[in-house]
């Protein structure tokens, strides 16, 4: 078994009076693509935001690369080597594509070789380099958001529902990009609702329901077991047939 890069143990998160995460246990192995599945409202986004420190865990441990990061502030967690792409993408629309990426390069100027690597799977970014990000299409904004997250080497990339509302061609482009990112030694934790998109991409999978992990294991195991898919993801599967 590969050594875990991120481990959540008994994590609880409250948002106001709501108890969203109710003891999440999740292991993300180093160097692979882990997928977090679940229906709407299961707690997937809250899990990512809790890892990033945007919502503080009220109990439990979040171990990242040997350190407990629960309770740390978001900038410190980012500086520890975690990049985050939210569901909304959150590109800075008043800034150009270049400026969006330049801001994410904390350690100095943009690395030309790395940029060329990114342009290899997102050529649209080179084309729209000096255009305001707000003028781009949804798929192109998603490319900006992912490129911004990996413009410098990071240990872990958290991505929240990257394919939502995008055309199939763009989704295939994103899948190729995630494979490239994995080849470049970045671990990926991908939240997704569409099982068909990630079943060939993920190495491991966890399924959430009602703020808990209800299944975890190799992706191949879930992909090869229709009955288990139906049991865990019935409605989600139907929605994406």
């Amino acid at each position, binding site marked *: 078994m590969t050594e875990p890069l991120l481990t959540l143990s008994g994590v609880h998160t409250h948002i106001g009076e709501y108890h969203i995460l109710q003891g999440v246990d999740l292991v993300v192995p180093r160097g692979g693509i882990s997928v977090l599945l679940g229906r709407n409202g299961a707690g997937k986004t809250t899990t990512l935001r809790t890892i*990033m420190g*945007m919502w503080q865990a009220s109990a439990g441990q979040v171990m990242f690369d040997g350190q407990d990061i629960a309770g740390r*502030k*978001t*900038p410190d967690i*980012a*500086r520890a080597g975690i990049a*985050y792409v*939210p569901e909304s993408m*959150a590109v*800075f*629309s*008043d*800034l150009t594509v270049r*400026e969006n990426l*330049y*801001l*994410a390069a*904390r350690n100095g100027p943009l690395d030309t070789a790395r940029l060329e690597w990114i342009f290899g799977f997102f*050529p*649209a970014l080179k*084309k*729209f380099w000096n*255009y*305001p990000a707000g*003028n*781009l*299409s949804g*798929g*192109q904004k998603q490319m900006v958001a992912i490129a*911004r997250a990996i413009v410098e080497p990071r240990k872990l990339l958290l991505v929240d529902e990257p394919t939502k509302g995008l*055309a199939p*061609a*763009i989704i295939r*482009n994103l899948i190729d990009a995630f494979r490239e990112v994995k080849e470049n030694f970045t671990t990926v934790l991908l939240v997704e609702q569409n099982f068909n998109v990630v079943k060939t991409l993920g190495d491991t999978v966890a399924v959430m329901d009602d703020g808990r992990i209800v299944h975890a294991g190799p992706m191949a195991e879930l992909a090869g077991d229709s009955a288990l898919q139906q049991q865990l993801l019935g409605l989600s599967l139907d929605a994406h047939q």
Partner: protein
Amino acid sequence: MNDTALPAVQRDLAPHLLVPALVLAMLPLVGSFPTWVTLTVAGLAMGMMIFIMASGLTLVFGLMNVLNFGHGAFVSVGAFAATLVLLPMHGWMEADSLLLNLGALGLAIVVAMAVTALLGWAFERVIIMPVYGQHLKQILITMGGMIVAEQLIGVIWGPEQIALPLPTTLRGAIIVGDAAIEKYRLVAVVVGLLVYLGMFLTLNRTKVGLLIRAGVENGEMVEALGYRIRRLFVAVFAVGSALAGLGGVMWGLYKETLSAAMGSEVMVMVFVTVIIGGLGSVSGCFTGALLMALVANYAGFLAPKLALVSNIVLMMAVLLWRPAGLARK
């Protein structure tokens, strides 16, 4: 791969064209060219001073989502802090030398901005920080802060108005053709343009500026990129306060008298400017300030009774056209 054609870069020129359009449209209405020149320069000068006072507030609104009704305190404190330099250096102020006049004025501005930046830093730490995200409390506590500041000015400098005459070489007017243009108004225009240029370059050409613009749009994402936005908040608040202090010095010299309430008196104009411009937009604030001052000046000449409500009418018109302000389509 999505291989669509290059999207056109949308340049929103309409707000920038409003000021020249207004100025040109007023020429036939005013009738006399020299009068039009005088009114226009007076409006531009007043607009620049309002912009200097309002620019910090718009960034504080946009970046920190803070309703600082105490911003006027920094205007008053800046003006009074300048007297710490200008009154003892009255010899330089009254000398018939532009160099000595500007030397005293420059030193006063540095002191005023340093004092208000320091006060802004303390104000953010003590008064603003406990009420982040609570707008009603922000309004109450910052208004309270302004009242306390005004009373403290009265305690330190006394309750009477203080005369603050212009330096000798900046008094009077220069005559261009048949138009009289007050020298100090030209200074105000130059200072306002320099402040705008400085802010424009900072916001567009530096990483700190990009962080501020990004923070105005989505502070949480800026933090997720690894930047401590709280530190940026404090720095922006202090710089915004310092700009209000600079505006206070300029406004005090324009009026040639200082009172503790001068800050709260200009706050209506400052808030209208920030709203017209669009919260968080420096270029919108710049255009908004110029528009408001020019409209007030022209209205004061053409229809004096209308001048009383010109600010509000302008704000209504702009918000009907662009509900989020000039800079936000």
